[in-house]
């Protein structure tokens, strides 16, 4: 509750800060302060300190899972701001507004992470989506940005329509939007409910960029300003997955036989298309876009397995994935040339950044002793614990091996190719934040319980 209200209010504060503060650094600091506040208040709420007492009628429940997830998201967002807030200046003039939108999105994310009513889910997703359409198109003179924005908007509203139809069916079958009542609704699983569930599956798959509903993702991530693409591909994607898993765990948990197969199929498809397509990319940004699709495939395992391991693992996955991707995107953002060749010789000019980026890439590839490995490990373990569809797990690891191909291409470019990676200017803060990111990635890879401990305590 703390986070929900503070994020909304801080969004408004940021709106006005654009008028009141002339210094961009002031705006930036304000945003950072807000985010710190968010994080602190959220952590306080985890330990029972709630600032606002609002009657929610059971539509939103801030349970431990939601709060924990929110903390991860806010922490990621904080790192994101440290690394990339300065780069937003490059996008356009509406500096304060971008922050406002980001806070609104965070507000939406708290909603989708803690919804107990389909109405809240719907609102939350829209609150996340609409600012994203805008952020995607915020580089107004850039045709790519325009195009991405339009595609995102059209496809996004299409999926919204699908989702609404699904909700309508569910409502028809059960007479309620509240998850508690939907689960309690008597009778066998009706065709109406299945149809609704399936449609919801489609639309959530769309939001989580799961194949074959992923088409928007590469184009949008590629077209959007890099700073925002990074935000979308990490924090927002994580939120979609949390919503996804909440939906299918809370509402349709009893109907597992009806959807588990589809989760498996979608997982396989996502892994395949995401990884295979990424192989041939020449632009690092687009490669990362596809990699985010591929990573979604691994996250899908938690949906497929849907057991304790899966949920726990998804949290770790989200943290690991967000950290690493934010780091890489932040570095990418500093580059003038987004192709792989643009990174040639990067290790020579920026050894620290190159090393940190490498650690992030290793994490994405799932190399042990990085957070990425343990999160993948969780996913695989969850999937294997279902004791069926083992082909899926084997397929996934084969695809993980394929993923090594494109992640390591970047490492190769940085370290082993002679090149003229342009001198880039980075602040010490940026450098140190990258080091912290890399350290966190490794720390989580060795002692994941540092993170997961909070989930249980």
């Amino acid at each position, binding site marked *: 509750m703390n986070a929900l209200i503070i994020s909304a209010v801080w969004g408004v504060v940021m709106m006005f800060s654009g008028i009141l503060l002339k210094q961009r650094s002031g705006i930036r600091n304000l945003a950072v302060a807000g985010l710190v506040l968010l994080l602190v208040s959220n952590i306080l709420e985890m330990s029972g300190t709630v600032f606002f007492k609002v009657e929610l009628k059971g539509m939103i429940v801030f349970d431990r899972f939601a709060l924990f997830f929110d903390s991860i998201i806010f922490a990621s967002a904080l790192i994101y701001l440290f690394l990339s807030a300065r780069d937003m200046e490059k996008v356009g003039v509406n500096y304060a507004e971008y922050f406002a939108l980001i806070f609104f999105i965070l507000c939406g994310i708290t909603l989708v992470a803690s919804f107990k009513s389909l109405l809240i889910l*719907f609102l939350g997703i829209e609150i996340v989506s609409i600012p994203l359409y805008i952020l995607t198109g915020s580089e107004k003179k850039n045709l790519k940005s325009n195009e991405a924005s339009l595609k995102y908007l059209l496809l996004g509203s299409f999926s919204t329509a699908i989702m609404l139809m699904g909700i309508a069916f569910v409502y028809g079958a059960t007479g309620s939007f509240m998850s508690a009542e939907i689960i309690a609704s008597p009778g066998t699983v009706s065709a109406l409910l299945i149809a609704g569930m399936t449609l919801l599956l489609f639309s959530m798959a769309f939001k989580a960029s799961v194949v074959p509903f992923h088409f928007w993702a590469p184009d949008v991530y590629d077209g959007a300003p890099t700073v925002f693409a990074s935000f979308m591909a990490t924090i927002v994607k994580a939120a979609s997955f949390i919503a996804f898993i909440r939906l299918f765990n809370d509402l349709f948990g009893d109907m597992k036989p009806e959807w588990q197969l589809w989760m498996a199929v979608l997982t396989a498809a996502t892994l395949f298309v995401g990884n295979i397509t990424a192989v041939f990319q020449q632009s690092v940004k687009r490669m990362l876009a596809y990699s985010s699709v591929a990573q979604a495939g691994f996250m899908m395992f938690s949906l497929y397995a849907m057991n304790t391991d899966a949920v726990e693992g998804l949290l770790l996955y989200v943290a690991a994935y967000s950290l690493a991707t934010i780091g890489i995107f932040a570095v990418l953002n500093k580059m003038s040339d987004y192709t792989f060749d643009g990174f040639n010789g990067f290790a020579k000019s920026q050894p620290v950044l190159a090393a940190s980026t490498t650690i992030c890439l290793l994490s994405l590839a799932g190399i042990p002793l990085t957070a990425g490995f343990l999160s993948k490990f969780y996913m695989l373990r969850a999937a294997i614990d279902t004791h069926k569809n083992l082909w899926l797990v084997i397929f996934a690891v084969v695809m993980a091996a394929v993923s090594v191909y494109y992640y390591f291409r970047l490492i190769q470019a940085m370290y082993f190719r002679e090149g003229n990676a342009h001198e880039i200017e980075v602040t010490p803060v940026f450098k140190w934040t990258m080091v912290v990111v890399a350290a966190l990635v490794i720390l989580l890879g060795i002692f994941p319980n540092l993170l997961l401990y909070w989930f249980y305590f």
Partner: protein
Amino acid sequence: MPVNYYIFLSLALFAIGIVGVLIRRNAITFFMCIEIMLNAVNLLLVAFSKMHHAKQAATLATAGIDGQIFVFFIMVVAAAEVSVGLAIIVMLFRNVHSVNVNFLNRLKH
């Protein structure tokens, strides 16, 4: 009125919306088709709300009202979405003087 009628009617409208999305290249028309789809959903929700009301009115006088509230929220959201959407379309039109959704494909592969 059997609720099935409404289901089929909504589905038909929904399908027309989808067909429209599939065959129109004009971004604005595309958008309008999505509005059709949303309206189909609205209609269905209202029908369901009345169905549930009919079933449960004896125990709860306001049974089914949530469906209609939901429709209200859909309208709200649709309005917001349209405003943003049209802003984007206008912005795009300013740059390329076209609203063909397939005209722009710098982003592919």
